[in-house]
């Protein structure tokens, strides 16, 4: 493409509607630049989408796929493992989301009240830190400190102070696993979650607070009548954005679960993974594709619902 020849005329022409062919030639360079992006999207997103047809086939990777219709979905509906994983996905994601958001709001309100800027900055740096640790590292750290052996910090302390006689295997006990999962999630992501709320809080006009003080409003009244109304939109936005991702839960659960707690911890994607790669027998890709397709469709519906909700609440969608 050579814009030099066209000069300013071409720029001016950009404001009017051009014939398609001229336009295509004009943008030739841009199409070329988009080509790598398109190839990546096709290979890593669109080819796999066509792979969902295996949900209607039996395919074990050796013989040609055999069409079975809706058989996999019928089987899925009868599998207790599927329903367990489906319920766990919703429960774990939603409780985690509510807890993390609540804690992040509380923490940012508290940070906002800090008077010393330096102290605030140091605190922020510290609470953001765990966000950069991978789930493998996080799980490793907590496996080490929650270990039931003497080397585990928590158990060693509890035994020392006589709270328990023997160490508790927190991550391997089906009554303890979920609370631990939530606590670890709060530890890892609450700090990072405050960023968006702090940005909103710093956007509130300080004159509002001053005017409220003049009227004799105390801390609590300012919180109730100025801060919370300003934050509520951000809170709803964060909830909507994250609700759309409810079905994606995988890595955090995968690195923390073990056979002893499957019933409490298995989510759809870990169910798909173990059914395919750890089942011992020759896996039926068809069945696990069907489970995956169900998860994708529910996820898709959630995104669309959240998108609608987002348009209603803040005037623009999330996608």
């Amino acid at each position: 493409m050579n814009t030099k020849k066209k000069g300013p005329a071409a720029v001016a022409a950009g404001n009017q509607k051009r014939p398609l062919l001229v336009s295509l030639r004009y943008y030739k360079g841009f199409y070329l630049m988009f080509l790598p992006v398109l190839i990546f999207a096709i290979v890593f997103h669109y080819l796999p989408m066509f792979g969902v047809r295996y949900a209607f086939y039996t395919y074990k990777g050796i013989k040609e796929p055999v069409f079975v219709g809706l058989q996999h979905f019928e089987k899925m509906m009868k599998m207790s493992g599927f329903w367990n994983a489906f319920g766990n996905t919703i429960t774990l994601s939603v409780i985690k989301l509510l807890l993390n958001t609540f804690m992040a709001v509380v923490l940012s309100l508290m940070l906002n009240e800090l008077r010393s800027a330096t102290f605030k900055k140091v605190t922020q740096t510290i609470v953001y830190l765990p966000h950069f640790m991978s789930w493998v590292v996080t799980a490793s750290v907590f496996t080490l400190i929650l270990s039931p052996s003497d080397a585990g910090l928590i158990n060693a302390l509890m035994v020392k102070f006589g709270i328990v006689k023997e160490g508790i295997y927190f991550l391997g006990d089906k009554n303890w696993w979920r609370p631990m999962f939530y606590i670890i999630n709060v530890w890892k992501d609450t700090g990072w979650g405050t960023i968006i709320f702090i940005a909103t809080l710093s956007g509130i006009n300080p004159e509002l607070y001053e005017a409220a003080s003049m009227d004799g409003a105390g801390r609590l009244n300012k919180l109730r009548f100025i801060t919370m109304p300003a934050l509520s939109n951000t809170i709803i936005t964060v909830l909507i954005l994250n609700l759309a991702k409810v079905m994606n839960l995988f890595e955090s659960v995968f690195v923390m679960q073990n056979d002893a707690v499957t019933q409490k911890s298995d989510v759809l994607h870990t169910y798909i993974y173990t059914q395919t790669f750890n089942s011992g027998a020759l896996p039926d890709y068809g069945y696990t594709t069907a489970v995956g397709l169900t998860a994708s469709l529910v996820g898709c519906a959630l995104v669309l619902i959240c998108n609608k909700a987002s348009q209603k609440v803040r005037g623009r969608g999330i996608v």
Partner: protein
Amino acid sequence: MKKKATAFDYALVVIFILISIIMIVPIYKVLIDSLDLKTAYGMKLFPERFGMAGYVSVFTNPTLYKPFLVSCLTTVVGTITGLTIATLGAYVLIQWKMPGRTLFANLMLFTMIFSGGMIPTYLVMKTLHLTNTLLVVILMPAINVYNMVLMRNFFEGIPDSLFESAEIDGCSPMGIFLKIVLPLSKAALTAIGLMYAVSYWNDYTHYKLYITNDNLYNFQMKLRSVIMGSDLPHAIGGATENTVKNAAVIVAILPFMIIYPFCQKYFIQGVNIGAVKE
């Protein structure tokens, strides 16, 4: 009009010190144990028998330092690939009058709504002979539509007049991209580049799914098997097994702990570009 500090302010400081301790203790405990040649019980402020043998064990053991090198390689190459894809895509997506722009934008956005899922993706990678190559773990995370949208939001802030005058001066689209857009976007490139780097360094899922050859494992994969005890490292120089485990955890987080204090503002910027506008 600065008021005097009240009891409330002091209480708040105390609470924040406690919160900071809770955040730090798990990491601190691992750090101390990694420097202690005696398996540690309970919480200690300092190692009982100080020694670097844990780290020496990690970096002299080929089954541990090779994965570390794999992590370094994929992080560097992956971040560059990711930034290339994100910037190219973002630049084309702000060409509002380009025929097909809406189609391209929708093709990108659709991938955020619907995905083929774990197994079909695995089967495609297998068919393309990408499994058990580092290509898959470098290329697949490079196309991240979320990062592309962040980049696009940033590019939108570049004044149109700059594009127009460059065009009048006879700059090609690629020329404008290289000479105007990229130099003006250093902050966004740093912010989004760091986001890519963190996700490449921390990647576990892609390796778990597509790599079975343990010569190609990255450090996260290796760390996982070390901690789970399925692949105990050979401890040397008086290090206990526990010392090596803890040292491996620290090595896995060290690169980001070092750069993090300097880059915090870019990380936060990354969140805020996204928050202002999706």
